[in-house]
């Protein structure tokens, strides 16, 4: 999905099975503009161990349709909260082996604070609100990754007071 918010913000959300090219995505957001002063990229990578045990692979299941809408909603919220010039979110699904990239967030702004804050906000929300579920393949079989209380706490930081937690 690719949409342009009037005037200035280029926002892209993509869910895909294929790997992505973080550098190319970042370059696309800054190309041809001279108002960008700060680019933050976050890349989430599949680690070789989960809870101390080696893993062979992760499989990411998602809720097609909802996952995209949910991420787009948070991207739109980020562009309202911070003066962003561009945002790209790419989330992979399917089987991913250790060392491979899982998720990419790129934020571009005139100033670094906005770019950093928006990238952290989006990652915290992706971890706790985007409908993705990780299953790990270990020697003993496959198990679902448990949600982490620390991720919930991180996402809570951004909650507007009085907002319904389920919204």
């Amino acid at each position, binding site marked *: 999905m690719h949409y342009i918010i009037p005037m200035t913000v280029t926002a892209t959300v993509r869910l895909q099975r294929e790997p992505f090219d973080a550098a190319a995505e970042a370059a696309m957001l800054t190309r041809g503009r001279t108002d960008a002063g700060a680019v933050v990229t976050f890349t989430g990578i599949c680690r070789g161990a989960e809870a101390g045990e080696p893993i062979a692979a992760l499989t990411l299941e998602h*809720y097609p*349709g909802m996952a995209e809408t949910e991420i787009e909603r948070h991207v739109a919220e980020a562009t309202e909260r911070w003066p962003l010039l561009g945002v790209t979110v790419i989330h992979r699904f399917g089987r991913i082996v250790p060392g491979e990239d899982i998720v990419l967030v790129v934020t571009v702004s005139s100033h670094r604070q906005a770019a950093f804050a928006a990238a952290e906000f989006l990652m915290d929300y*992706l*971890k706790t609100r985007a409908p993705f*579920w990780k299953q790990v393949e270990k020697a003993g079989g496959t198990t679902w990754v448990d949600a982490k209380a620390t991720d919930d706490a991180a996402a809570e930081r951004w909650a507007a007071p009085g907002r319904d*937690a*389920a919204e």
Partner: protein
Amino acid sequence: MIIKLRYFAWVRERVGKPEEDIEVPPGVATVAQLMVWLASRGEEYAHAFANPKVIRAAIDRTHVRPDTAIGNAGEIAFFPPMTGG
């Protein structure tokens, strides 16, 4: 009223199917009530919905709380806490 149910991750595995159409029975008005009714539908459902507190729901692809009315929902999804990113 016929609605589509969708299951993800271990809820899907326990129920044994990714989706199904059901007729909402009389007296089932909220998402929480729907989970109670589902748990009564057999062993696999009882297992999937044994602890409804850890199950999240979405109506028509929007997160909702358990006390949300089913209303005119077209699609209700049940899944564990999300672990994306």
